[in-house]
């Protein structure tokens, strides 16, 4: 792999600091004894390996063969040979190469942000924001991660900085509640659905007419299974990164692209803050309800 030059003048060296915090978050940051030292940033542009479509691996002949531990489910046509256009099989399969691209791009950008924060002498990076956006042409994506590097006033740091999406009062509450931030956690799963003949026809609404099914609606098993699998793969990916710690303030974004009737790409993305309890919850009385008179 070609080495990328990420050497820039670390923010903070010039004497003034930069920060992505709002005024309120900045004030809360100072109240916690954290002082911002600079806006740490990491970038990575990745080209995704072109995936194999069922068409390419042999439409009408044999389903795609994924790696041994990857998720795959096959659906066979119960009708026999109907026509050359009739699908003899359908398949749900994990697009592991997309997940690998995403992991590599994100972790490279993340590491570059962390390196920058380390060079600034930061203890942590707060208010992290990340984006994954298409760049230049199809199959090329840019990963961007930035956050405000902070250090504990009057102390120097030798360890790798911790990171969190939280900032301001929400971060303060997390500390108060006994949770120390460790790092941000993100994960993606990608499942491709190549519809079987039945899935294709029920998704376009012609199933009953063509195959004599009753007019009753039926559950579309292949789609349901793919969606459940995408979520389960995501959950496993996240759990593997937690090492027994907790994940707070999780955000789950469901992305789905439909190429044709029942031909889907399902890609949920999950973000959260990995935290570790450093003290027990203080006794917390039942909150007193209030009514604002404005």
């Amino acid at each position, binding site marked *: 792999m070609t080495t990328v030059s990420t050497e820039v003048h670390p923010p903070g060296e010039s004497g003034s600091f930069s920060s992505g915090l709002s005024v309120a978050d900045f004030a809360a940051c100072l109240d916690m004894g954290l002082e911002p030292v600079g806006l740490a940033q990491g970038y990575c542009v990745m080209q995704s390996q072109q995936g194999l479509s069922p068409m390419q691996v042999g439409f009408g002949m044999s389903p795609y063969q994924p790696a041994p531990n990857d998720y795959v489910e096959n659906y066979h046509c119960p009708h026999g040979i109907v026509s050359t256009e009739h699908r003899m099989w359908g398949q749900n399969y994990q697009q592991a190469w997309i997940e690998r691209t995403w992991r590599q791009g994100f972790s490279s950008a993340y590491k570059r942000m962390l390196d920058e924060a380390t060079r600034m002498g930061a203890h942590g990076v707060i208010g992290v924001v990340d984006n994954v956006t298409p760049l230049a042409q199809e199959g090329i994506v840019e990963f961007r991660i930035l956050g405000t590097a902070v250090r504990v006033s009057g102390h120097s740091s030798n360890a790798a900085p911790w990171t969190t999406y939280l900032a301001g009062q929400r971060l303060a509450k997390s500390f108060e509640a006994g949770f120390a931030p460790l790092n941000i956690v993100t994960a993606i799963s990608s499942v491709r659905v190549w519809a079987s003949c039945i899935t294709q026809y029920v*998704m376009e609404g012609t199933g009953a007419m063509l195959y004599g099914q009753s007019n009753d609606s039926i559950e579309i098993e292949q789609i*349901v299974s793919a969606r459940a699998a995408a979520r389960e793969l995501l959950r496993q990916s996240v759990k593997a990164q937690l090492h027994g710690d*907790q994940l707070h303030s999780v955000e789950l974004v469901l992305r789905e692209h439909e190429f044709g009737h029942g031909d889907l790409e399902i890609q949920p993305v999950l973000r959260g803050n990995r935290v570790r309890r450093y003290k027990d919850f203080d006794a917390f009385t039942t909150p007193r*309800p*209030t*009514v*604002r008179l404005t």
Partner: protein
Amino acid sequence: MASLESASASATTTTSDLSIDEELNLHSVGWQPVDLVSGVSVFSVSMGIWNWGQGEITGATKAHENAFSHAIERLQRDAVRAGGHGVVGVHIERSVHRSHVEVSLVGTAVRPIDAVPIGPDKIFTSDLSGRDFSLLIAAGWQPLGLAHGSSFVYAPRRQISTVLAQQSQNIELTNYTNAMYVARETAMERLQTTALALAGTGVVQVQVVEGPMSFASHAISFATWGTVVRLRGDAHRRMDPQMVLPMNDLHVAFEAATLQ
């Protein structure tokens, strides 16, 4: 899928989409988050049922009702697997297409602190936030599950003579209004039926989504859902909220954002 599910069943870490505030609120009433859980279902709708007709479009209604029920069942199974006693903060995403209906539910499984797992028949689901759930518990109530009801109804077409006679008038289109009321009545009745089946005394935070669909201009859809609740003890515990009068200025004289 079965192998995927068994692989993660032994995991002991906690994931939650609750905010810190919500988690603190949960702890204040003796509950804790366990895991992020989800349930999805997609039901087919037969071709042609959106066309001309009268009365309820039973195929579409059945698909919607079944998709909701199956998604809730899967959410409960997921919660059982995670060791939860219920699910709070359920985000409900539903969409109705010409050929199918989709329902997707995502929420956080919760349980009383240090409680042991229970069976799927006792798991509750709720779209109340962590804060509202805590308030409900503190007030002596308990959530029992998600109630839902839906109805799709044809708005009968007017005769050509009626259209011509009415085209230059300001006039209510009673065919649409009537269809709306029929759909509303039927859906709300189904909501009540599912609430009663859960032995609830009421439904809170009821959401209503209604109107025509882009692919079926002569059909009205009405869907509603909410959290079924019941008193845990004999009587409601009064919360006696404290009145607060904020002393902040009503008008902001200086907006920090203008410096950006």
